[in-house]
């Protein structure tokens, strides 16, 4: 277990260097003058150009620039936004809780629905429920979620008026940011309306973002359960006279969870990718929205720093999944 963890940790270091190198090279391959790109000014005078060139270290050889960049990163310096002049890290910190809240709720929705649906479909293999679930999961996995999000807005917000069209909370409410998660902050704000408003804003985007993970989890759970239900140890469990529910959950699902968790880990990257689209559709003030805007504003510092942070996040999540995998699977532990 510890060796496994140590090996994974050791693998993270070269991947991290690779990620930063890739980001560094990509930014340097942007057409146009790097100073203009970095400073965000066009047609500046040669004196100012030379000044910035030296200031930004762009007169150094490329390898030295990369080392300097690494050094900055290790000190936690991700550069400043060309547009707002705010540090990238500070901006990320303001936008990230919104994304985390959305993604966590989406994942919760996907797991809370996908796991039991997959289990039920496997237990009642060949039933109408099973075929219905297969159909739904194929549809869900192919869903262009930006379209799905707009359709959901059209149906549930515009036509039925059940949920708000966009944003995180009604403008009426001011919630003192404490954790950055509106659901939590508004819960403590004594204003019941604020919490309800935050929840109503969150539901639709969370469902939309959770659709693809839901389809994937349900499908994976079903096939893992089908495999596990045919195993000898499930027969042993039934031979003990255990109740069917206990056989399915304690004996079968416990084993089926091992492959499902792997898929779940892979979903986190997809979830962050999907967050970009969902946040754009719902004007959700999160990291995805921030990054798309940075592209439109040609704010490459933000794009570089934000992408790097998300990559690091994905690496950490993958590490967490590896640990969870080891916890779930006793054969890996020893």
């Amino acid at each position, binding site marked *: 277990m510890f060796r496994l963890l140590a090996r994974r940790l050791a693998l993270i270091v070269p991947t991290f260097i690779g990620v930063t190198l890739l980001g560094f090279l990509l930014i340097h391959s942007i057409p146009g003058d790097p100073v203009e790109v970095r400073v965000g000014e066009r047609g500046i005078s040669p004196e100012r150009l030379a000044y910035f060139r030296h200031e930004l270290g762009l007169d150094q050889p490329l390898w030295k620039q990369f080392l300097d960049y690494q050094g900055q990163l290790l000190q936690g310096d991700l550069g400043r936004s060309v547009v707002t002049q705010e540090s990238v890290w500070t901006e990320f910190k303001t936008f990230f809780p919104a994304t985390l809240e959305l993604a966590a709720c989406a994942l919760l929705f996907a797991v809370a629905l996908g796991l039991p649906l997959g289990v039920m479909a496997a237990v009642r293999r060949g039933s109408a429920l099973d075929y219905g679930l297969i159909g739904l999961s194929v549809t869900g996995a192919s869903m262009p979620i930006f379209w799905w999000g707009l359709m959901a807005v059209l149906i549930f917000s515009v036509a039925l008026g059940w949920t708000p069209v966009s944003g995180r909370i009604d403008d009426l409410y001011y919630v003192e940011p404490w954790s950055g998660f509106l659901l939590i902050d508004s819960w403590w704000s004594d204003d019941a309306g604020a919490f309800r408003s935050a929840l109503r804003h969150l539901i639709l985007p969370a469902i939309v973002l959770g659709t693809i993970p839901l389809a994937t989890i349900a499908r994976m759970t079903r096939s893992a359960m089908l495999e596990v239900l*045919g*195993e*000898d*140890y499930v*027969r*042993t*469990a*039934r*031979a*003990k*006279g*255990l*109740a*069917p529910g*206990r056989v399915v959950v304690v*004996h079968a699902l*416990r*084993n089926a969870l091992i492959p499902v968790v792997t898929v779940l880990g892979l979903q986190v990257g997809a979830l962050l990718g999907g967050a970009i689209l969902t946040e754009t559709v719902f004007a959700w003030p999160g990291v995805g929205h921030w990054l798309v805007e940075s592209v439109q504003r040609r704010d490459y510092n933000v794009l570089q720093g934000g992408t790097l942070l998300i990559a690091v996040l994905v690496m950490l999540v993958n590490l967490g999944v590896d640990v969870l995998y080891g916890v*779930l*699977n*006793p*054969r890996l532990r*020893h």
Partner: protein
Amino acid sequence: MTALLEVCNLSVAFGPFHAVEGVDLLVAPGEVLCVVGESGSGKSVSMLAVMGLLPRTGRVAADRVAFRGADVLHATPRNRRRLIGREMAMVFQEPTTSLNPCYPIGWQIAEAMRAHHAAPRAEIRGRVVALLGQVGVPAPEQRMRAFPHQLSGGLNQRAMIAMAIACNPALLIADEPTTALDVTVQKGVLDLLVGLQRERGMGLVLITHDMGVVAETAQRVQVMYAGQVMEEQPAAPLFAHPRHPYTAALLDALPERAEGKPRLPTIPGVVPGAGDRPAGCLFAPRCRFRTPHCDAERPALRKAFGARVRCHYPLDDAGQPTGYPA
């Protein structure tokens, strides 16, 4: 005295394939019954049907399946579960895949007791240790925390046996309990089963394809072939005077009986499958004494020489078919 397990005319079909056909079975308390047959003869399927462990694709029909005189076949699932694992327990062929890889073996044994409230919660741990010791697992205190993949096949099978006897069952069904084990530990596990049976006065149904195992353990033997019972009689007379040509052929294939012969006799051909079931006697295509009558009419199970035998020409004490056309 009522029989422990009573099965009348049990049939199991998977689609068009008849895995078990018209099997009768009677186990008295404290008795050892061996069910013998080649793989595919339906011996495991019939026992799984009695336990209610067949997959849903298996269709089970019987005139009567009763445990201690109480109907099992039509019992509600809940009532059946009260019986299974407590009064009537089963040990399977593959110990390593039959134990759940995600839980320590001690936990799995304890679960059987908890499910049937077989012991007060506080005593369960001690009982598990005692059980593991009883089935010959060394250092039970440590081993109970081990996962199946950390133990050998032999130890896993002992853990399986401990799990099966955890609730003091009156009947233990062991399905090829030694087949998957190394030859060196087979005897140990077999001796354990027989020893436990004697100590606790359990009924034991031992399913095997190994006549050697039968010789060491059985009081009564039932020989199955292609889903039917071919012969049934107590062990000693069966080994002395098999009445069915199939039993005779099985015994001839035992190495210890083949001494002096240039090569071990085998039974030519294979067990009929779904597509090639003969209309007459199922064993006819492989039988030394096959006649046109055998192909035309399927024999019934009948009494002959004190045994029950499904043959038109049961063998006499000299091993010759009786009533055989000249």
